[in-house]
């Protein structure tokens, strides 16, 4: 087939084991080398923003967590905070701590799932078997706390929906001990693995000079050695009272992003330990909010952002004085990564590296098209 240096066009996805979700990348290939790439999304478009306009605030609350499947909690937090901004609700200190705990647990879960995906993309299947199991242990705690396994629907405008079960913090602390004891194993088998290093170093290098201007977020920035994190730069909840570091790594390649995430797992465990220690004993978990169909937002708009496991998750929300939200626009972390950055990074890479690069950028299609 390959004659006269003609380009061959193939679709990488949507039905492909090496794609991060239901999306596709259209590639122009010269031999094994990629000469052009275009991202196609829309396979998961559900019209969330339209549906939210039709629903009252309390009804819309259940739908926002579906925007990002691997870690729904930053969405709930964003939605709740935007509504609280517009309705002037101040939540209690205890609710804030519980929210931080849920967000960090969700971050840990997402990072463990990422580890499975990243190692699977280069053929290291064993790590996925372990890390998905470890994530499941976190989900078990979520089941106990929120009553849901993946979609928790727990962070609610005005606080959180349920009180902590008896002995929950002890069990969380035990789980953290277990997860911490597993980390050297992951280091040995995955992060120090010479085959991973050989594959990952120097692949998918992001230009650090234009990273800030082009609006990259999360591990892509931190993998270039730029220390940016919404939790530190624009603190929400009680993150300004907690002691943690933002891990960074030089290089901007797949390996750097992996090492940043490795550091983040440790920092998340550290934050959770502090939350367990500092959790206020009493306090209202739920402020009194108006009933369904009487909960109205003033005519105003706001912009909130939360650090998810893949970067900044931002919502724009406008109320119009009725019980329905006029507009809620979502900007997920992978919108820019999936289009502008991915299309640029894939040029002159090999076909076999596509899955690895996509995984390390943390591209998640449901939040790109909503």
């Amino acid at each position, binding site marked *: 087939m390959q004659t006269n240096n003609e*380009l061959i*066009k193939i*679709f990488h996805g*949507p*039905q*492909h*084991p090496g794609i991060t*979700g*239901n999306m596709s990348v259209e590639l*122009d290939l010269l031999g094994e080398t990629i000469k052009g790439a*275009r991202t196609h999304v*829309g*396979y*998961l*478009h*559900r*019209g969330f923003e*339209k*549906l939210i306009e*039709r629903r009252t605030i309390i009804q819309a609350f*259940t*739908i926002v967590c*579906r925007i990002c*499947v*691997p870690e729904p909690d930053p969405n709930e937090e964003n939605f709740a905070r935007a509504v609280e901004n517009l309705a002037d609700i101040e939540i209690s200190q205890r609710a804030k701590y519980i929210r931080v705990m849920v967000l960090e647990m969700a971050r840990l879960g997402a990072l463990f*799932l990422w580890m*499975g995906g990243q190692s699977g993309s280069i053929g290291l299947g064993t790590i*996925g*078997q*372990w890390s*998905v*199991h470890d*994530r*499941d242990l976190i*989900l078990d705690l979520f089941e106990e706390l929120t009553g849901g*396994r*993946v*979609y928790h629907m727990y962070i609610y405008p005005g606080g959180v929906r349920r009180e902590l079960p008896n002995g929950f913090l002890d069990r969380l602390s035990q789980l953290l001990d277990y997860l911490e004891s597993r980390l050297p194993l992951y280091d040995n088998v995955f992060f120090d693995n010479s085959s991973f290093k050989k594959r990952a170093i120097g692949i998918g290098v992001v230009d650090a000079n234009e990273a800030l201007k082009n609006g990259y977020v999360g591990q892509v920035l931190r993998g270039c050695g730029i220390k940016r994190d919404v939790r530190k730069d624009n603190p929400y909840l009680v993150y300004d009272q907690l002691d943690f570091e933002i891990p960074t790594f030089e290089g901007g390649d797949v390996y750097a992003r992996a090492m940043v995430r490795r550091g983040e797992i440790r920092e998340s465990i550290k934050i959770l330990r502090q939350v367990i220690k500092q959790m206020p004993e009493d306090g209202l978990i739920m402020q009194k909010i108006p009933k369904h169909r009487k909960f109205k937002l003033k005519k105003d708009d706001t912009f909130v952002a939360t650090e998810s496991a893949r970067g900044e998750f931002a919502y724009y929300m406008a109320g119009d004085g009725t019980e329905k939200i006029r507009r809620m626009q979502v900007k997920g972390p992978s919108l820019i990564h999936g289009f502008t950055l991915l299309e640029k990074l894939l040029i002159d890479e090999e076909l076999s590296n596509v899955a690895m690069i996509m995984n390390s950028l943390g591209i998640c299609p*449901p939040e790109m098209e909503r």
Partner: protein
Amino acid sequence: MQEGFIDYQKVLNNEEHAIKSTQSVIQKAVDWFRSKSMFVLAYGTGCGAIEMPPTFTSRYDIERLGVVGVATPRQADILIVSGYCSYKTLKRVIRSYEQMNEPKFIIALGSCTINGGMYWDSYNTIKRLEDYIPVDMFVNGCMPRPEALIEGFVKLQDNIKNAKKEAGYIKYRENNEFYKANQKKIFGDNIEPSYEANFEGMNR
């Protein structure tokens, strides 16, 4: 007052649903073997794809039951439609399904495939998957737990082993006009995604 799943109890009382055991010994053996080796197409179509890794890895390890993931439709027996289908996905699902070799089965996860689910008023998702492709097993949940997914597999194996129900692929073959007409109703005439080979012809 009836409790639980209402229509199911009607079906249980119905005489016609009794197991047909008119098949030959060889056919029975073939069905038994068939139920013990299920190759699942790795196509995560919707939300439910997030529960696939726990199901297929060490925690729930569905490989115990002979269920293995494969990469291409040509080797697969089972297609898991894991949740809502947008127009664009449904086209690819139909194409993948038509590429699979018989015998082939579909497992549909979650409320969205049954009656629209959360997205019942969304302009871009289909409401009843059954109208467009034949589904062999529906699993309850939003999304289903891995246990529920395994339950779906176990029940499907049981159906295959005991020839309890007409398989979906036979329905698709015999009532092809019905399915094609429904597909045409929402897609218009260009049902298949058009993969044009020329570079200038593309949008960009």
